[in-house]
């Protein structure tokens, strides 16, 4: 209770945030005077996340870094938190709020990088189908938008994106159904971290691995394995480890009065990267060392 607490609040339980946990851990080792926590809301919903942050403020947390479930329209709620504690955003920004700074990537850029992968893998053009958890979520919308932007003017087309409400059984069935319904599809995109592995498995079951170009997001072990194997063209990775690590250090410095780390526009962009066959080993090794395994 004596040490000031810094909290990293994520937008829902997902493996994606495991890397952030590692980043928090690493920062903790370097910030012995602080108590660092990573918090999962029990559901991915605005009301529950808001409630979690209210309670954290009550519990005396000094600074919060949040991946808001719905940043665009949660301005008031976030401002309420910002008025009571130092608020940072990550993952998806809420620029209209009084947050101190945003650290994260641009989902639009990530979408554009996915388009790059597709263009490189399919120079002759093709038809893509996307798969995502929540069609309505901001990160999904931005990635889709970015990809469409990146594909504009090429012969590659993103014809539809199917949602599964984060039910992985449905995620896999969606791919299976897509293979049946649209035999002319030549590429599939997994927008959420678990979508790519489900695409991989459905293709494997159907014996179509390698025949259909797979564009991935994030770094699920199966995705990385597919990249290495060559059956997944490449994957776009964000760096939640860096968000968490740098973010925690930034918050600690900010609380001590050192505001030099906050740029004028308040945006700290950790770029997303394309991991192809050549980089995958190095990336995986790096992941391992970061997680301290």
């Amino acid at each position: 209770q004596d040490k000031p607490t810094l909290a990293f609040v994520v937008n829902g339980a997902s493996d994606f945030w495991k890397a952030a946990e590692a980043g928090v851990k690493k920062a903790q080792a370097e910030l012995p005077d602080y108590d660092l926590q990573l918090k999962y809301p029990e559901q991915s919903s605005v009301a529950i996340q808001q409630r979690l942050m209210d309670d954290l403020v009550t519990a005396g947390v000094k600074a919060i870094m949040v991946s808001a479930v719905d940043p665009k329209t949660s301005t008031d709620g976030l401002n309420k938190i910002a008025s009571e504690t130092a608020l940072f955003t990550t993952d998806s920004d809420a620029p209209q709020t009084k947050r101190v700074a945003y650290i994260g990537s641009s989902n639009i850029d990530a979408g554009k990088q996915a388009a790059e992968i597709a263009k490189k893998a399919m120079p002759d053009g093709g038809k893509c189908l996307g798969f995502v958890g929540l069609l309505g979520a901001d990160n999904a919308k931005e990635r889709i938008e970015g990809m469409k932007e990146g594909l504009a003017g090429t012969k590659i087309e993103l014809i539809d994106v199917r949602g599964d409400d984060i039910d992985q059984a449905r995620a896999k069935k969606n791919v299976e159904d897509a293979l049946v319904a649209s035999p002319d599809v030549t590429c599939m995109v997994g927008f959420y971290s678990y979508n790519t592995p489900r695409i991989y498995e459905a293709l494997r079951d159907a014996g179509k691995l390698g025949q259909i170009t797979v564009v991935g997001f994030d770094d699920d072990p199966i995705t990385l394995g597919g990249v290495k194997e060559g059956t997944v063209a490449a994957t776009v990775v964000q760096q939640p480890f860096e968000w968490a690590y740098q973010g925690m250090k930034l918050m600690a410095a900010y609380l001590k009065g050192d505001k030099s780390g906050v740029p004028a526009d308040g945006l700290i962009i950790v770029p997303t990267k394309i991991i192809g066959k050549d980089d995958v080993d190095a990336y995986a090794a790096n992941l391992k060392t970061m997680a301290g395994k």
Partner: protein
Amino acid sequence: MSKKDLGLLILILVVGAVVAIINPRFLLPINLANTSNLIGLFGILAIGQAFVIITGGIELSVGSVVALLGVLFVDFIATRGMAWPVALPLILVLGGLIGLAHGWLITRLKLQPFVVTLCGLLIYRGVARFYTADGTAGFAFGQNFPELEFLTAGRSYGVPNSFIALIVIAIVTWVVLHRSVFGRYLYAIGKNEEAAKYSGIRTGRVVIAAYVICGVLTALSAIYFAMYTRSISPASHGQFYELYAIAAAVLGGFSLRGGEGSLIGVILGTVLLQELQNLVNLLGIPSSLNFAVMGGVILIGVLVDQQWGVFRERRLMLGAARKGAAGAAAE
């Protein structure tokens, strides 16, 4: 206040005291205000549910209705520019109509409440998602409705107005449920619908009225939730809220077989559930355990209540037996 309710109250106080000792910030006015705000929101839902449970029914579509009506409300006033004093009653009427439809299907077409409201759960959420094309309904930056915000999310003398609304609704519904002719019919129908019919009660109408009341209260609470989150993604908003409401009623001594339960109980049940959520966050318990804590406490609560009843009965009997034996010996 019945013994059951008293036991629940004591449990709430004891848990509160323990939490306050571990983390005194529990008692900060701001925390109490935050928590009582949520008690207000969920309490209104739970009262609605209670009306239906009393009749031996169940309303599973509550969470989806909160999402659908929330989306509509925000859309009406934020996007379509409807004045809120028009939108608010309109939403309440819509809630009432949903209740009416459920009640009608259940009483006139003799479908089971579980089935009807399960379909409602699926349909309303689908409609809400379709309406926004799976997008989020929310207020634009800087869009303000001062009076509406004061009424829904504001505070009077530090007390959230949502909580005050709950108290007012609770008092009115207490009178309706426990003192009025209508309330008596609800209890009677819950226990023995056939007999109520034989007594010349238009049971159909009474049951429909219960669903309408539930619908209107759910709609009211949907507005409160919308103004609390100010943003609604229809895919997840309000998910599982029906379970919260049912759990509150069950904790408060309602029987899902109908005909049993008190209004004070359902309020206390809501208070306990919200206290638990608050406690998980305040004591730094991993939020993954949140549900487990809730489930565990409900189970223990119901078990203790049940076993206490058995124990008391047995003690009463044994007491009588001993007294009798003593009397016999004296003769």
